[in-house]
């Protein structure tokens, strides 16, 4: 293993630790909105992990998954905001 691969694995490990930190906030988040914000950061973190893994394993196709995840993140946050608005109007 060259220094390149070792440092990329280290970066992946740091991203996974960051994902666990956001997961703690997801568990302890006092309200529902906090959890939605956490979900936003978790999506971004997963995009980073998938892209780094695409570099490590030398596989271009994994970037498609990152692209789809970027779209789904936007739509899910917007849908959450829409339904929260509907629920508060009642």
């Amino acid at each position: 293993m060259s220094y390149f691969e070792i440092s990329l694995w280290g970066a992946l490990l740091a991203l996974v630790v960051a994902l666990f930190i956001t997961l703690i906030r997801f568990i302890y988040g006092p309200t529902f909105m906090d959890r939605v914000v956490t979900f936003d950061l978790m999506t971004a973190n997963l995009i980073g992990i998938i892209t780094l893994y695409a570099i490590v394993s030398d596989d271009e196709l994994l970037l498609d998954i990152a692209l789809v995840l970027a779209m789904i993140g936007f739509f899910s946050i917007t849908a959450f905001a829409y339904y929260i608005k509907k629920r508060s109007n009642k």
Partner: protein
Amino acid sequence: MITEIIILTLVFLGVLLMFIASLGLFKMPDLFTRMSAVTKAVTFKVGLIVLSASIYFNSFPVVMKSILIIFLLLLTTPVSSHLLGKEAYERKAPLWKKTLIDELKDKKKKNN
């Protein structure tokens, strides 16, 4: 050799900033400050990592895909965060005790 160093610099910058954003999400006292920490993370830090992937693969489809990812994130994250923040304010999410300025409240007072 030089491309590897450039890739590693971009990746480490992105990962460091992402880690700081997660710590900010964990430690900030208030929903809105947490949101400010997260939004910057999502737009810039993911962009750095995806840019490093496009430098590594160095082919046309990958570059177009990464430009699309960066463009999507840059365009959609502020919109969704704005929607979410406004909804949170309407539902009267608690502000931090030491908050100094509440501009939306002042504006509503002026209109009434």
